[in-house]
């Protein structure tokens, strides 16, 4: 499976959060590393969209897309700061 980066889910995250999120700073709950969402590792077909920390590999976010809803798991994020 091709690893992409957070740029690839700019549209999806805008749908979920209601604003531009690729430049937002995401802090990993496991290792504390903070970097822009755009630099995180993204798997589009995992199943679901899986976002992992580029420093330690922990799962930061999972988005399961349904026909009319998105289920979002953010347990791996300590914080996310939109600019």
């Amino acid at each position, binding site marked *: 499976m*091709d*690893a*992409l*980066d*957070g*740029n*690839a889910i*700019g*549209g999806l995250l*805008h*749908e979920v959060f*209601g*604003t*531009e*999120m*690729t*430049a937002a700073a995401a802090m990993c709950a496991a290792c504390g590393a903070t970097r*822009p*969402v*755009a*630099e995180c590792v993204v798997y589009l077909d995992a199943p679901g969209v899986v976002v992992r920390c580029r420093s330690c590999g922990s799962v930061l976010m999972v988005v399961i897309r349904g026909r009319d809803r998105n289920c979002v798991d953010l347990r791996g994020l300590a914080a996310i700061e939109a*600019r």
Partner: protein
Amino acid sequence: MAGTALRGRLTWQNAKVAAVIRQTARAVTIVLDVPGWPGQRAGQHLDVRLTAEDGYRAERSYSIASAPGEPVAITVERLDDGEVSPYLTDELRAGDTLEVRGPIGGYFVWDPGKDRGPLLLVAGGSGIVPLRSILRHRERTGSTAPARLLYSSRSLAEVIYRDELDNDGAGVTVVYTLTRSQPPGWTGHAGRVDAALLAEVAWPVDGEPLAFVCGPTSFVETAAQDLVELGYQPGRVKTERFGATGGR
């Protein structure tokens, strides 16, 4: 900075195909007429959604090829086993309708009013597309930031926007490297982008250059790491990965 245009919902809307311009045997530029389009920033992308007769949908992201202030256009390279790109490159005609949403992205963008320093642009294959938007924006805004583009392509025939890049104006240097085949008499670089080529082409770090690297995932990761090892600040090496195939 984000501005009100980026706030609020991102909605799918119908765009009319104004023109389809062939760039190479595998790549076309699709000019779109999108009602109410808020305007793009240099480096952004948009999402395209195709819906089959049975309701099956496929979505892909494509970088915007045109500069801010120009009609929105994407450049798409055909992936032979792709679900979406062969339709866009081979079937789509002017007058057709496409479902799109955008513009998208606030990280891989260049703003000449805010981003200082010489520009280093590193493209692998169709990774040239958002960098072309940046170069056009630089030209249109009269930016004096000097720019160097290092563009890796499999062959000269697969170089997208070649005429335009060969005629870039003052302050822009374009360096090609051809990885698979070189035409007879080729005096440019051959082979993949590596640390030695980057050391030769990249701006010295003391001028605080800003780098944008776009292309296949492994290409981007290697080039970005090489730049950091040359002394580039990680925060000034912006990256966008297209996956293993070099197209999204």
